[in-house]
C-alpha cells in the first residue's frame, strides 16, 4: 500500500475527497486481512469500515512515525481481535468460512478463467476453499502473523509495528502457522 503524506494531511483537515482516496487506496488490503482473519466477508466489510472510521476520527493523534498503512493494519487487526473475542464469548464457531461464501465472482489471483477447463475451475475453487478453511482454523495469534506475512507480504519489521510484538516472536508464530497449515493441507492433498 502506498502512503501519500499530502493526501493524509488533507484528510486530517477534514477533506472528504482525500478521505475517499485513502479508503480507495487501502480498502482492498484491509478487507482482505479482515476476511482472512474472520473467514466472513460481511464481518470483514464491517471491520474495514470501522477501521477507516476509527482512523479518520483519530487522525489528529496520528504521529506519522509509523506508516499510515501500518497504522490501518494495526486498527484492523485489533478490530478483528474484538470480533473473534466476541465470537468466542458467544461460543460461536465461524461457520461462514471464505470457501462457503458462495461467491463465485471471486477468482484466485493470477488465474484466467477462460484458460481453464470447468473441472480445473472447480478444482481450484475447492482448493482455495480448503486453504481458506485451514487458515481460519489456526489460532488467532498465529493466523494474524501468517496473514500479514504471507497474504499481505509485510516484513517482520512492519509486522512488529502492527502487532507490537518483537520479530523473534513473530517468526516463531509464522513458523508454527506454516507447520500447521502444511500438515493440514498435505493431509488434504492440496498439492
Amino acid at each position, binding site marked *: 500500500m502506498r502512503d501519500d503524506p499530502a493526501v493524509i494531511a488533507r484528510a486530517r483537515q477534514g477533506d472528504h475527497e482525500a478521505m475517499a482516496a485513502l479508503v480507495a487506496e487501502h*480498502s482492498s488490503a484491509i478487507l482482505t486481512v479482515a476476511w482472512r482473519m474472520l473467514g466472513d466477508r460481511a464481518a470483514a466489510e464491517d471491520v474495514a469500515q470501522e477501521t477507516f472510521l476509527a482512523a479518520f476520527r483519530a*487522525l489528529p493523534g496520528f504521529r506519522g512515525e509509523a506508516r499510515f498503512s501500518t497504522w490501518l493494519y494495526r486498527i484492523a487487526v485489533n478490530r478483528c481481535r474484538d470480533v473473534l473475542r466476541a465470537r468466542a464469548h458467544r461460543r460461536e464457531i465461524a461457520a461462514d468460512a471464505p470457501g462457503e461464501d458462495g461467491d463465485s465472482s*471471486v477468482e484466485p*489471483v493470477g488465474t484466467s478463467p477462460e484458460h481453464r477447463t470447468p473441472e480445473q475451475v472447480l478444482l481450484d475453487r475447492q482448493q482455495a476453499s480448503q486453504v481458506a478453511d485451514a487458515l481460519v482454523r489456526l489460532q488467532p495469534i498465529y493466523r494474524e502473523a501468517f496473514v500479514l506475512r504471507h497474504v499481505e507480504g509485510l516484513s517482520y519489521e512492519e509486522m512488529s509495528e502492527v*502487532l507490537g510484538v518483537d520479530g523473534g516472536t513473530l517468526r516463531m508464530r509464522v513458523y508454527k502457522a506454516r507447520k500447521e497449515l502444511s500438515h493440514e493441507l498435505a493431509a488434504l492433498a492440496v498439492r
Partner: protein
Amino acid sequence: MDHDPELLVQRFLDGELDRAGRRALLDRLGRDAALRERLLADEAMLEAVAGLPRLAPSDDFVARTLVRLADTPAQPPEPVARNAARPRRAPRWLQVAAAASLLVAAGYWAGRTATPPAAPPGLVGLAEAPVEQVVVRLVLVEPTARTVAIVGDFNGWDPMRSPLERLNQGVWTATLELPPGRYHYQFLVDGERWIADPLAQETTFDGFGAQNSVLDVGA
C-alpha cells in the same frame, strides 16, 4: 551460522538465508529426503495461499464509509490549537484535589499484576504468556464535559475503547492496565475536542502539529 535444518528451511521460506546458508540448505536437502518433502509441502502450501483471492471493495464501499463517517461525531479539522486545547480550568482547589488524586492513585496502584484478565487491545498481542501489567489511573478535570475518552498507543487511538468515568465535581477518571512501556495519548472531550493531559509530566509533538501526552509505565 546455525545449520539446524529446520531453521534453515524457515529462513529460506522467509527469504532470509545468506549465501552460506543457502549452500548449507542445498547440501542438507541433497542428503535428507524427509527434509525435501517438508520443504516441498511448505512451498506448495504457500503457493496455494498466494493463490487465494483478495477481497475487493464493493462499488459503494467508499461512499458508505464516508456516510458513516458523517453520521459519527464530527472531528475538528485541525487538532485544537494549543491554547484552545487547554481544558476549561476548574477551580484551583479542584485542580489540587485532582492532582492529589492522581498522585495517591499512582502510589496506591504501583503494584503489578502478573496474570492480567486480558491484554490491552492496542500494542499488545493476544498474550501467549502472562505479561506483567501495571495499573495506571488517569484523571482529568472537565466540569462541563458530557463524555471524555482516552485515546493512545495502548488502544490503537480508538476513541471508543477507553471512556473515562465521571466522578463528583467534574473529575473524570480511567484506570488502565498496561505493560511497561512508553505511551503517547490524548483525551477526547465530547467526541470532538482533543486535548493533552494537563497533568502529564511530559508532552511531545506528534509531527502533525498536535501535542500528545507521554505516559511512562515503568518496568
